[in-house]
């Protein structure tokens, strides 16, 4: 099959590799679309994967090609998306169904071969069927949609009437905004430094989308100086972390969602305000997935797509064939042009 193989940091090649074979309890999935995650760029060009050579890509959907021995829940032809984290099932986190906190996990696309390829193998229990009416492009965005939902759930969700401020209007930030709207937020503000992202947010109906330098002033005017109930840091930038903390009201919630890009220095005054205002800080990581339940982040994200609560297709800025993806990934790294969600099509 054809695949994008990472041989060393920055050494990404489009080449032929053997098609993987599903073992017992595993399924071979023909990849329809695989999204490029913000984390894939540093993974490919800066940090590297856990081993080489390796195929990246963990946000994907496709069609079941072949089932290994003992597989019962899916059959060839089924449209599926895949929870890319392979949990051990033997640690205290797994016992409570908190698979993303597994102490001995494996991962498609960073620790073992992922979906920047024509085919990928995954355990049966990691597969979810894609509901009718949800396209495979949308289903390939289940992972970021689940991550976005999980971030708000970590903060106890959003109560109707609350104000939510989101710092960073990339694909995840825009998904957080959509979830906040579904949950009944009365005011949703988005901040970014890229004009195209601000414009996209406005096209999605988020009229309070502004340049980040005005964040504190805008939030103050939207909330009579009280601050937002929920602030989501979705950029991973030191300044936005400080803004998110500064914009939270007394008793408010701050969610740390963006992967950090550098050290942040918290000014004494802000530090003190976080204490005086009893602000709650929530870390969020990955998303919650369940095999036998349907109220987890993944099933909920797919249901939200089927019900039309999320509009994901406007987030897709590029669809590129696998054969041209090396070029696109380099362009993303160099910041040549505007990218929102990029889908690779094997």
């Amino acid at each position, binding site marked *: 099959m054809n695949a994008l193989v990472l041989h060393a940091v920055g050494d990404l090649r489009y080449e032929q590799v053997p098609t993987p074979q599903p073992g017992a309890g595993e399924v071979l999935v023909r990849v329809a679309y695989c999204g490029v995650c913000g984390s894939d760029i540093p993974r490919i060009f800066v940090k590297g994967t856990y081993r080489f050579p390796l195929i990246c890509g963990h946000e994907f959907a496709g069609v079941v090609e072949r089932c290994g021995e003992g597989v019962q829940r899916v059959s060839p032809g089924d449209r599926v998306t895949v929870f890319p984290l392979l949990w051990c099932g033997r640690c205290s986190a797994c*016992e*409570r*169904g908190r698979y993303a906190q597994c102490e001995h996990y494996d991962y498609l696309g960073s620790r073992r071969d992922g979906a920047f390829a024509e085919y990928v193998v995954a355990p049966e229990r990691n597969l979810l069927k894609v509901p009718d009416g949800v396209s495979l492009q949308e289903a390939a965005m289940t992972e970021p949609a689940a991550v976005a939902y999980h971030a708000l759930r970590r903060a106890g969700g959003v109560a109707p009437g609350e104000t939510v401020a989101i710092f960073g209007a990339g694909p995840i930030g825009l998904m957080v905004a959509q979830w906040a709207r579904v949950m009944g937020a009365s005011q949703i503000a988005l901040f970014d430094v890229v004009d195209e992202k601000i414009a996209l947010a406005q096209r999605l109906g988020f009229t309070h989308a502004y340049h980040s330098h005005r964040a504190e002033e805008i939030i103050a005017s939207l909330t009579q100086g009280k601050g937002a109930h929920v602030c989501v840091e979705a950029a991973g930038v030191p300044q936005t972390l400080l803004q998110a903390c500064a914009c939270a009201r007394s008793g408010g919630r701050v969610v740390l969602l963006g992967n950090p890009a550098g050290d942040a220095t918290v000014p004494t005054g802000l530090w003190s305000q976080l204490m005086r205002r009893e602000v709650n800080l929530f870390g969020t990581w990955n998303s919650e997935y*369940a*095999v*036998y*339940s349907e109220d987890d982040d993944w099933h909920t994200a797919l249901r939200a797509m089927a019900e039309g609560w999320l509009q994901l297709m406007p987030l897709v800025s590029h669809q590129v064939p696998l054969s041209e993806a090396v070029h696109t990934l380099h362009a993303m790294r160099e910041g040549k042009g505007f990218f929102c969600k990029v889908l690779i099509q094997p």
Partner: protein
Amino acid sequence: MSETGASMQAVRCYAPEDYRLERIPVPEPRPGEVIVQVEACGICAGDVKCFYGNPSIWGDATRPRYVQPPVVPGHEFVGRVVALGEGAGERFGLKVGDRAVAEQIVPCGRCRMCDRGMYWLCRDREIFGFREKAQGGWAQYMRYPANARVYRVPDSLPTEQAALIEPLACSMHAVDRGQIQFGDVVVIAGMGPLGLGMVACARLKNPGLLIALDLRDHRLEIAKRLGADMVLNPSRDDVRAEIKRLTDGYGCDVYIEATGHPQGVLLGLDIIRKAGNFVEFSVLQEPVTVDWTILGDVKELNVYGSHLGPYCYPKVIDYLTRGLLKTDGIVTHQLPLSDFRHGIEMVHEGKESIKVLLVP
């Protein structure tokens, strides 16, 4: 040691009041299983209810039958490992000769509740001593199935404590459900083995005042020994007036109901303060009739159910081993298997006995 073809003494339940002492084959270990020689196994109120044909166990017009006779009763056991199936030793950290206990529930691991780690509420659960696949501990040997939750027990614990791990785990969970805060006035009603265990566990939370209720003074005496600050006997004391006096008229902060009698529920709803935590643990003898308004409009109560002892076995073993959890006086009798009928009658009457153990 278990040997192929060996037989053992066991009590088997065939029907209400038809329990027989028999010789049956010693179980053989299959992959993932543990075989133990039973050291002791308690008689639980649930075992007594099963013996006398309680419909919650034997079924009626609205409920299916849960018990699968013939079955060896007993879920409050501790034993010594005599054989290990493939992989069981590594999985549970056990070797032959170790002492081990298994939780009373064998969860399926494949339902929605198990998926979320809420294994004690498993849809397709097997409870030891009631089910064909989970034969109990009123026998010389027993099998811990591959899905059982098994823990090693230190040799230092005396038998009368090791056999209490199961009821103490249930007591600990009920106390946890009550979310006791420093300064709280806590009332625990019903000083059976479980209620006494709750007193011992609640003592460790250091509430403001820990009060035990029972109709029998000898049980209240043990409650004092286990850490109750005050005991009241509703047949003699005016509990309502006393709680009112002690709490400036507010009522107690936490009430844990472990009497098994509707009066225990009614009293609790009466003496608990507004927005208090009411924990229901009992298997009640009959339906309770109460003005339900008290939960909402009158007191805005938090009512917490409590079932089994999830995630408590390791804590109970640890606390017992470190001597933090008192149990003196809970085990009153140890009988040979052949006296099982006498033991059931003693627990049923409850006059002198508290916890009765069968020692095979």
